[in-house]
Structure formats: C-alpha cells, structure tokens
C-alpha cells in the first residue's frame, strides 16, 4: 500500500484560460503545491486561443511538488474524452481530480455531455477518480440561463442521466450541504461528500472605503448567460439621475464562453453612460486591488448554478454585497454565513434602492462587510486542500487493497 507522496492529475480550466472555475483551480493548485504529501501535479487544462501560451511552470524546488501544465482538451470539442484519457494513460497518476461543472467541456450539448463522460471512463479504466462538481443540473434554473421550454425536459433528462453516471466514480465532492442531501436522497448516492469552497487569500480586514469620494460599484464574473449587466447599468443610471454623479460602475471580467461578444454589445449599447467602465479580464495579481477599491459588489444574476466564487472573494476582501432574491443564491448565502442587501430580480429600481441604501448607510455597510469577511475567512482553501488529500489517500488505499485482494 503506497504511503509515498502522491502524483495528482487535475482536469480543469486554468488561468490565463478564461473558462469557468479557472480561478478556483488556480488557488487550489497554489495551495496544493505547498503540501508535503504531493510529489507531482499534472494540470490537464484546456488549450488557449492560438498565439497564447500558459506561463512557464516554476522549476521544482526541494520538498515542493513539480507541476506540469498539459493543455490537452478544447472547449466544445467532441474529442476531449479521448485526448484527456491518452494523457492520463501515459502519465498514470495516483489519482485524478476533475474540477468541473455541467458546462465545463462545452456550450454545445453533445460536447458538454461527452466531456463529462471522461471521469466515468477514467474510473472504469482503473484510475482512482474524484470529481469536484460545482453545480447540479437539478438545481439550475434552465429558463434563467436562456433555454427554451421545449428543450428543457431533454436537458433535464440528460442532466439526471449524467448525474447518475458521474456518481459511479470513486468520490464526488460538492460545496453545499444541500447538494449532498439531494444526491443522497434523489439518487441514493453513497459516495458524495461536502468540502466547503474555502477562502482564496488570507487578507486582513480593512474597512477602507468609508467616506470614499467616488464610490465604486463593481461586478465581476463571466457574463452573458445568467449573469447579465443591463439591469445593473440601468440601476446605475437611476442612481446618476438622483444626482449621485461621482459614482462609478466597474464591470470586470469576460464573456461567458457560451456567449461570446455579449459584453462588447452591451458596452456599445451603453457607451453614453458616464462613469461606466468595462475593464475586461483581470489578471490574478490585479484581483485584490480591484476588490479593495470597490465600495459595493453587485451580483446581477438571473439565476445561479451553485456556490459563487465571486461571493467568496467579496467576503475575503470584506465587501458589502447586493444580491438578487432568488432561491438558490439566498440559500447559499445563508448556509455559508454570508449576508447582503437583496433586490427583486428584474427590477432596476429595487436594485438601485439596494445599492443606495448601502452607499448611504456606512454603519450597515460595515456590518455586512464584517459578516462577509468572517464567513469567507473562517475556512481557508489551504485547509480544504488538506481534506482533499485525506480523501485522495483513502481512495488510493482502498484501490490498492482491492488490487492486492484480487491478486
């Protein structure tokens, strides 16, 4: 039975790739690299657009695991399963972790479905396999993400089928307790576990925006599907019309891979709005400054697909949040200890009012900032990585025992 250091393969998006969950992968790997239990990390990432390359990996240091970035799959390709398996078969890691959600491998249904078969195939071919599943098809509001009523039953059917298939791997980790309950009760799962999201950074709490001259409203994410900025811009215009002319609205982030060109079209549509800035992709080393300058962080979501990485970031930088009053998000927030001002989805006046209340009431803003900070920093991702390592070791050991018995 091996007690030696582990070689781990992680199938994920990764910066500077802009696919969803890239930031989670970045911080996960950052802390994984600090762990003595790891010998090598193989990052099986998506290929970047032509002309771009992943930055060179740091040379291995004594006691630190070597890390190799291996671009070997492509968003919306049908060949991802085979390409990922080819690398894994050659490299033979001790365990494979898939950091995924339902649309990780494609916006087109067949590509997304085939891609998600990869962990099942890898498991069937004998490699210990764990899936970190960031959302569940059962909890996604498909109408909210723009799917028609006609196609919805088919997507639900394939979503449930895929969920059942994914549950055949060694372990499935989810980030919300309600997901564990759902998978156990509805699917009879016995191999699901909760590992909370965890905070990316250890940031001191700074209530630095009290009395800021030009308050900054900020939103951050991958926009175009269920994250749409039009309502926020219209609410911002309402605030400007009230005479709050020093306000700034910063829209940070990129198009969702499924909605290329969305932000450019919105930027064009609202080019006349003063104080509105589209800053595009934010490199990792600029994220902290972006959050620290924000007075209020707004989540202009029409539905949600699970635990929000941006909410965790807003929390760890001690930010007050404005959130839509939609079921899944409200549950996530209360389960994870966060709070914020809520607005009625689709109502620009309600959103403007929620933002104005926070801007005008520094005491309330400070209380929300503090609560969000405590919620985000109670559980550092560093500790959560340790939980993964415990489970990796257990899965590897069980596999070894089975092999020994059958031999």
């Amino acid at each position: 039975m091996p007690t030696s250091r582990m070689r781990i393969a992680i199938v994920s998006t990764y910066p500077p790739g802009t696919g969803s969950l890239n930031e989670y992968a970045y911080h996960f790997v950052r802390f994984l690299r600090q762990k003595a239990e790891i010998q090598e990390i193989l990052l099986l990432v998506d290929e970047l657009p032509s002309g771009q390359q992943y930055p060179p990996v740091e040379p291995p240091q004594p006691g630190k695991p070597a890390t190799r970035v291996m671009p070997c799959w492509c968003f919306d390709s049908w060949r991802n399963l085979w390409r990922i398996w080819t690398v894994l078969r050659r490299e033979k890691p001790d365990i494979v972790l898939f950091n995924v959600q339902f649309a990780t491998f494609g916006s087109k249904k067949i590509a997304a479905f085939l891609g998600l078969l990869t962990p099942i195939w890898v498991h069937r071919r004998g490699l210990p396999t764990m899936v970190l599943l960031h959302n569940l098809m059962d909890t996604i509001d498909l109408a909210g993400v723009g799917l028609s009523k006609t196609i919805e039953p088919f997507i639900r059917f394939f979503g449930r089928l895929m969920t059942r298939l994914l549950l055949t791997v060694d372990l499935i980790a989810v980030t919300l307790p309600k997901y564990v309950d759902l998978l156990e009760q509805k699917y009879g799962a016995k191999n699901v576990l909760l590992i909370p999201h965890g905070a990316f950074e250890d940031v001191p709490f700074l209530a630095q925006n009290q009395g800021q001259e030009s308050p900054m409203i900020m939103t951050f994410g991958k926009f175009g599907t269920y994250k749409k900025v039009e309502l926020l811009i219209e609410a911002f215009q309402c605030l400007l019309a009230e005479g709050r002319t020093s306000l700034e609205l910063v829209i940070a982030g990129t198009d969702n891979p499924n909605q290329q060109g969305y932000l450019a079209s919105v930027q064009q549509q609202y080019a006349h709005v003063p104080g509105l800035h589209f800053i595009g992709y934010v490199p990792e080393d600029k994220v902290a400054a972006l959050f620290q300058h924000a007075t209020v962080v707004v989540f202009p979501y029409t539905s949600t697909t699970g635990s929000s990485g941006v909410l965790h970031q807003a929390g760890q930088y001690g930010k007050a949040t404005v959130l839509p009053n939609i079921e899944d998000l409200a549950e996530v927030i209360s389960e994870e200890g966060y709070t914020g001002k809520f607005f009625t989805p689709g109502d620009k006046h309600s959103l403007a009012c929620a933002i104005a209340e926070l801007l005008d009431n520094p005491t309330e803003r400070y209380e929300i900032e503090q609560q969000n900070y405590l919620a985000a920093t109670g559980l550092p991702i560093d500790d959560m990585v340790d939980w993964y390592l415990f489970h990796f070791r257990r899965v590897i050991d069980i596999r070894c025992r089975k092999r020994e018995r059958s031999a």
Partner: protein
Amino acid sequence: MELVQECIDGAVVLKLSGRFDAYAAPAVEKFLKHVDNSVTPWVIIDLAHVNFIDSTGLATLAVGLKRCREHEGSLVLCAIQQPVRIIFELTRLDKVFVIRESVAEVIESRLLEKVGESETHAGI
C-alpha cells in the same frame, strides 16, 4: 466552549463541551499546536458534551490530525453525539478520523496494543 485537559496513561485527553465553532476553534487550535511533538503525540478528543460543530471546527480537528500524523502520532475522537456525527458523515471525515465510543475504550485498546507489542518483542 469549555476545554479541560487531562493526561491519562500517556495520552493527552482534551474534553470539550458546548459549541465547537469559529469562535471556539482558536483555543482548540492553540492546544493542538502545543501538544508536545518531541514524543509521539497521542491525542484523544472527547466530544461527549459538544452539541454543535461547524466546518471551522472540523477544519481545526483535521489540521490537528495532520500534525499528529506528521509526527507519527494519532488523534482519536470519542463519544461523538448524533448532531455532530451528522456533520462528520456529511464531509465523510468520519472515514478519515479514528472514532471511538469513549475515552476508556481508546485507552484500553491502546494498552492492549502495547501489551501485544511487548509480548512480540519478548518472543523475539
């Protein structure tokens, strides 16, 4: 939360009572940090009177377990109550920790192990 520390047959026993949450975690973390690592640490945490644990509490115990294992020691949890057990099951950390019914059971099994070891040595 209350913390009471005892030493029983070479084991450091920490008895906790009340809520084991983000507010209580630093005290337990401090205790686990200061367990004497110059000898093989053998820590027993008695959770008989803990009626609530949150993920910060779990993370604190997990860090303690990791530290004990790094020094080839052990951290055993005892007398977990049902509401707390549910949280361990939710995270499947119940499969990671050694969990026993009582402190006495741990001490007894450890003493039996020691007797077994000394008999083996005598045989050699």
